[in-house]
């Protein structure tokens, strides 16, 4: 049975990063042009972009192109101040894609919530996580993938993922894609934390210090 893997996440959670990783395999019909560019706009380059806008049009898609398909989108997408922000309707997309007789696999990407907040406010002028959280309960049995896990365990992490489509964890481009950990620039040193003393004294404590 043909499979469509659908990755969704908050803005800034690594949607482009995962789109590159999951589009690497030669048998996967995914966002191939993103592999030749560091960044591209979703609405002009992602192969399913127009179906996210108008889900019923997915009946026009040629499912003979492959056995494995991959698409992704952030919720919301765009920037409010630029007039390009809108909220994809995941349930509607899944409904219409499901009617085409393909197996659907839902993947949810995440990243440290503090970094997400800073990134969204800096780049988009507002914290947009709420829009994604509104739709999260509607997602049945997703596979959760993690930005931090990907950067620490890399190929070994990719080997463990079961998302219904093949993953080219062995492709040398994985290392190129993961060359820079974008979290590093957000991290600062902390001089001390009350919990440090617990480790040093090895005594149990009942309440948070």
């Amino acid at each position: 049975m043909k499979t469509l893997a659908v990755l969704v996440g908050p803005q800034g959670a690594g949607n482009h990063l995962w789109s590159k990783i999951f589009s690497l395999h030669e048998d996967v019909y995914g966002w191939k042009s993103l592999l030749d560019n560091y960044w591209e706009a979703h609405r002009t380059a992602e192969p399913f972009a127009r179906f996210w806008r108008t889900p019923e049009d997915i009946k026009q898609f040629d499912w003979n192109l492959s056995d494995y398909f991959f698409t992704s989108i952030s919720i919301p997408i765009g920037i409010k101040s630029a007039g390009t922000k809108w909220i994809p309707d995941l349930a509607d997309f899944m409904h219409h894609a499901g009617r085409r007789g393909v197996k659907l696999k839902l993947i949810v990407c995440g990243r440290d919530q503090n970094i997400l907040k800073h990134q969204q406010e800096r780049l988009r002028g507002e914290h947009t996580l709420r829009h994604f959280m509104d739709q999260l309960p509607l997602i049945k049995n997703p596979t959760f993938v993690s930005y931090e896990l990907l950067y620490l365990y890399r190929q070994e992490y990719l080997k463990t993922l079961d998302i219904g489509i093949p993953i080219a964890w062995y492709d040398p481009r994985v290392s190129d894609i993961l060359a820079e950990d974008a979290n590093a620039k957000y991290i600062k040193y902390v001089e001390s934390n009350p919990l440090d003393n617990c480790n040093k004294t090895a005594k149990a404590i009942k309440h948070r210090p």
Partner: protein
Amino acid sequence: MRLLITTGPQGSGNHLFARLLSLHPDVVGWEKLKENYWVPSDEEPFARYWVYPEELQFPEGEFFLANVSVPFFYDGIRQVPKILEVCEQAKKLGVEPVVAIITRDQNINSLQQKRVGGEVTLPTALNYYDHIIASGVEYHFIDHEAFFLHRENYIKYLGRLLKFPVTVEGINTFIDKDANHKYIKDIDHHWLDDVIREGRKPFKLR
């Protein structure tokens, strides 16, 4: 019977996941951690077995939850726990082991280890986990940041992933703040910001 061993580098969230995955009433886990914010690692119910795996015994039960960091302190001595040996011993006793490797942002984890212990022990953990990965023991990766972002949705996912009973009742006990928060700073600008903003303008404005 199933033994879930949660293990992560020091400071990656070992206590957090040990508590979360001990909460289901069918799980024999780290009971003391349900009533205390923090408990020394060598008071964990399986602690002695990480040093002396041949002594492994199980109490009554179907699902067991154990936790240990790599490295860990036992009786004041820092050492690498014998997780693989415990897995082998568990199999001999008819209990199926599964290892859940905990991850936290590597930048934060390294800073935390340096501050608390004076050195970064992350490479020691990664080296040992390579052995676990290569051993044939069932293993999965679980994530500190994913819990704080997705909360009960992530716990339910872990139940499916690990084939282990979980509950979302009580998961927020002792958690009033995301432990990563204090490590995160805002940045004014990143070079990719301009590229993204340009790409998101309507065509006529580019």
